[in-house]
């Protein structure tokens, strides 16, 4: 039994140890000769049932692997969203430039130059697929099937 265990009961001063034990003895409570039973009580609190499954470490590693996969998937998704948005922006930018220089309304620009539709439409379709995949996984699964 180390001093640190005893200090719990004697306020950090070993000289008080006997006083406390004397009080316990005078209370009429059963006390072993060396008083260790009381001194170890606090430490025994640590033996409160701590129930972790026997395969806990394995479960932790499984969880980590799962999180890694999710993070990788989420990273890939962010990249797709970024590419789609950039594609849309490029299409819209080109369309706006065309409209500015030709003084034609945007709608006519769209009908006259279908090449603007490529980045714009492509980006929009990609975004739509991403939204479908994220919000309606069952629908996107059916589409894939």
């Amino acid at each position, binding site marked *: 039994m180390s001093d640190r*265990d005893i200090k719990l009961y004697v306020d950090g001063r070993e000289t008080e140890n006997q006083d406390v034990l004397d009080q316990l003895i005078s209370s009429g409570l059963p006390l072993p000769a060396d008083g260790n039973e009381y001194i170890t009580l*606090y430490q025994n609190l640590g033996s409160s049932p701590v129930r972790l499954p026997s395969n806990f470490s394995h479960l932790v590693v499984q969880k980590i692997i799962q999180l890694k996969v999710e993070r990788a998937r989420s990273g890939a998704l962010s990249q797709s969203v970024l590419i789609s948005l950039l594609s849309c922006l490029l299409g819209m930018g080109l369309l706006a430039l065309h409209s500015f220089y030709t003084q034609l309304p945007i709608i006519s620009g769209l009908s006259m130059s279908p090449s603007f539709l490529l980045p714009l439409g492509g980006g929009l379709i990609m975004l739509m697929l991403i939204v479908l995949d994220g919000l309606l996984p069952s629908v996107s699964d059916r589409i894939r099937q």
Partner: protein
Amino acid sequence: MYGDSAFKGNVVTSMEPDEELVRQTLLGDTRAFEFLVARHQDSVAKYIWRLIPSSEDREEICQDVFVKVYFSLNKFRFDSKFSTWLYKISWRTALTFLRKKRLSMSSIGNELIDEFASGEKDLESVSDEERIRLIIEREIGRLKPDERSIVTLFHLQELGIEEIAEIVEKPAGTIKSILHRVRHKLKTQLKELAEPGQVRTGLNEGVA
């Protein structure tokens, strides 16, 4: 790689030091991390069990601790012990959980005390030792989160003052002061044992 190391249930027999297992994990070896978890899971669980009131959350928090450790392992500085760093993450995780759930540590129950509150156990039937244990449990349950953590780390995990100061991020003097105050409280409560009637009253307060 790990010599004669092997898992035997929860017991890990790897002879590799923690720091070496950390290095192996950083190189991508998840098996090394599994060894680390198996080695430290009991001490983390014991610590979390003393801090978190709800038994159904404890296991999840223990898992969260090790997941956080894994994903922040590259921030581990090898100038301190791995166990100290692990306790620091455990403490922060437990504190975040308590804040999120807005749980007051002073209202923390205890499975043993709850048994009395629900009438499952009768005070007449418990031994004197159990009564003392209840008093200590009750007093520990009334402490603030940081006090509870400090007492647990010092008396259950047997860490030094400097190490505890690093974990809870408080000066060593504050740690000593808190330990002194808590011991004084416990001492006062134990003195009540001199009058058995008061012990009963004290317990009922804890239960109510």
